[in-house]
């Protein structure tokens, strides 16, 4: 018989390396037509990092995402970056980009101030224009300012900067310390159906609500969450490298089973409204944590459905059925 069950799991997850320095540097150049070029040493590994980083640079300069071209991943060209690891790109590289773009922007404020007859600190950027704070009617198009700054004043709008999350080392005896500058939080809830005759688990739906600070690009955050859940589903129910005397016996995608489109449930994503003042425009990160609570919530849902606690992953049909049979035997023994 198929039995329905529901289970939840929450988690916390840090952004960046554990205590160890993990800096990123960035260079932002504003072109005389008002577009910009961002140089970053990180690498696009699929998550959409370069688009998010372009959005961060654009925001700092009052531009649109499409105005920023990103050059990445070439040690001859791009500045130091600790890389696409530890869910750190949006936060650490993003913070470096904000600081680099601010330096370029300050050059433009210096150039624009006399043109607008105010002091540089009275200026802001918005909608591709440099405007006076509190008096937006007085403004000038950013391309005109860049052109003026570069070709008349001889001061091209380029900025470079770096960022490293501040941490406090951990006591070797007690581990007390501040290993990370910030953390994200999340809850996932699974609705499952367990066949108590075969042990097979079908996931009907997963609701995932994540905190990533400000979602710089909500569409890409959703993509991370949905993808993380698929990795979590594989970890929960299917995937396992099997060994025989140190030799992998299933080193191929025929016998190592990972989720296909038929294995994935409906996923409902929610983002918590949160703003971390230490991140770029309040952002933290979204990469790894999306895969963290999935297996846990599925195991709790299995428990809710058939009353067995799976203690060893993956919860394959055989393992779930064995647990069900064991429980039946125990229940009978108690009844007898």
């Amino acid at each position, binding site marked *: 018989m198929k039995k329905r069950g529901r289970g939840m799991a929450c988690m916390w997850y840090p952004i960046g390396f554990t205590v160890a320095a993990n800096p990123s540097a960035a260079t932002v150049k504003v072109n005389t037509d008002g577009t910009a070029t961002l140089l970053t040493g990180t690498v696009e590994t699929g998550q959409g990092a370069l688009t998010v980083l372009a959005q961060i640079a654009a925001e700092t300069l009052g531009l649109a995402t499409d105005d920023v071209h990103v050059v990445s991943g070439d040690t001859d060209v791009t500045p130091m970056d600790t890389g696409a690891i530890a869910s750190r790109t949006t936060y650490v590289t993003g913070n470096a980009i904000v600081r680099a773009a601010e330096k370029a922007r300050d050059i433009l404020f210096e150039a624009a101030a006399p043109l607008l007859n105010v002091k540089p600190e009275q200026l802001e950027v918005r909608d591709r224009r440099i405007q006076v704070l509190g008096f937006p009617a007085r403004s000038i198009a950013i391309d005109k300012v860049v052109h003026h700054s570069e070709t008349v004043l001889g001061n091209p709008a380029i900025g470079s900067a770096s960022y490293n999350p501040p941490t406090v080392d951990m006591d*070797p005896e007690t581990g007390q310390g501040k290993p990370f500058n910030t953390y994200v939080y999340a809850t996932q809830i699974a609705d499952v159906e367990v066949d108590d005759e075969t042990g097979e688990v079908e996931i009907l739906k997963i609701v995932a609500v994540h905190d990533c600070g400000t*979602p710089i690009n909500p569409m890409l955050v959703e993509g991370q969450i949905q993808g993380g859940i698929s990795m979590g589903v594989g970890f929960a129910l299917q995937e396992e490298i099997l060994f025989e*005397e140190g030799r992998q016996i299933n080193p*191929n995608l025929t016998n190592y089973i990972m989720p296909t489109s038929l294995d994935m449930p409906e996923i409902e994503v929610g983002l918590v409204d949160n703003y971390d003042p230490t991140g770029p*425009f309040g952002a933290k990160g979204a990469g790894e944590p999306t895969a963290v609570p999935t297996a846990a919530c599925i195991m709790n849902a299995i428990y809710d459905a058939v009353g067995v606690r799976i203690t060893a992953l993956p919860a394959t049909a055989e393992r779930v059925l064995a647990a069900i049979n064991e429980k039946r035997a125990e229940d009978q023994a108690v009844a007898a």
Partner: protein
Amino acid sequence: MATRVKDVQTNVEDLVTARETRAPSRQPLAVPIDQPVTFPLELPESEARLRTPAVGQRATRPDGRLHGLGQTQYIDDITFPHMLHAKILRSEYAHARIVSIDTSEAEKMPGVIATLTGAEVPENSFGPTYQDQPILAYPIARHRGDGVAAVAATTEQFALDALEKIKVEYEPLPAVYDPLEALEEDSPKVHGDTNIYTSKVIKKGDVEAGLAASEHVFERRFSTQMVEHVPLEPHATIASWDGNGRVSIWSSLGRITLGREDLARTLQMPQSRIRLIGTVVGGNFGGKNEITNEPIVALLSKKSRRPVKAIYSRGDEFVSSTIRHPFIMDYTTGVDSEGRILARKIRLVLDGGAYCSWTGTTIGKGSILAPGPYNIDNVLVEAYAVYTNKTTTGAMRGFGAPQVCFAYESQMDDIADALGIDPLEIRLRNGFSENSLSPTGQSLQSVALKESLTQAADRFRWKEWQA
């Protein structure tokens, strides 16, 4: 005259049978007269990319468009003139001393231009924490994924054929596969005289006093399995030297700055003579965060003075790239009658595989996160990572967090069930809020745990289901 013509033809046939039948002809007979590939050059950009402010927009990805067109150039899509293909021979034993490696027969094979063994690597070790991993194993192989020799040939098939001709003499050594066995004093040792290669303690309050004061104590062991990242694009590298002694390396590595440092160290070269290009990576998930075959390909390219490409097969990807650490997790948790956690004692044993790789980070994050996002005054986490003669465990999406979350959240539901408390309620009762103190004593800010719990419960209609 006739004889000579025949001789020439015979020679040509020999050549064809020996080499060319397997070497692909690069010349299509019919060159397309129109355009083999058609695509639009100027498409209107999506509204979200053109709008300000930029932050918060569902901006589409320029690289996403290229993915859809099939125009993204991954490393296997890049070719250079005279390029060779490299393949790596892997250890026949999970633990063995390599007595000798003879590549002479392989070098005589058709199409073979260069071979490489570990003895030829200038600095044959790497690793983000401990440099305990060889580029090519020599003189000890510590798991079956260890490379022992490599070949560069004019085609992949020639390289594979040549691998079979490499003679490696092994002296098998006792091996250990089970992490708990590896903890024992008389177990075979993978490196040095202990298999415990890193440990971590997190200690807050007095865990024994907390457990003694608890109304209920819950104990359980949880364990997790080895998991592979399965990036759809296997690890890929191209290396090419120029006349200034500079090497350019196209790599599927996700962190090039530190990758170049590692390359400079293993190749014993100035960093300024190495150009590392991180191309679009076809999936990483933590598995492409350190060098793997880059030094091998660079050295084969140096020896042959030709560009060399190496693409891992799916099998290579499984056995020789890193994988997720299996955890054995003993959880003891004491609560009061209301389900408030008074103490949590945790022991973690990480199956650390044959080399350290990112284990240092995994044990650190795993230990810090292990008590869960809960206010607990008395915490003790003791974690040990042990070497085994199995696939190297390294970084994988979450650095130990999915493992410990499985344990701490399963136990939360055990507690809730035993005490008759709603799983949502027990989490809200114990969960972090702003300024909570973490297990390492850190005051937490920007905490949104309870908001995530209540929003998820609302979306799921949790309360209706529980009613």
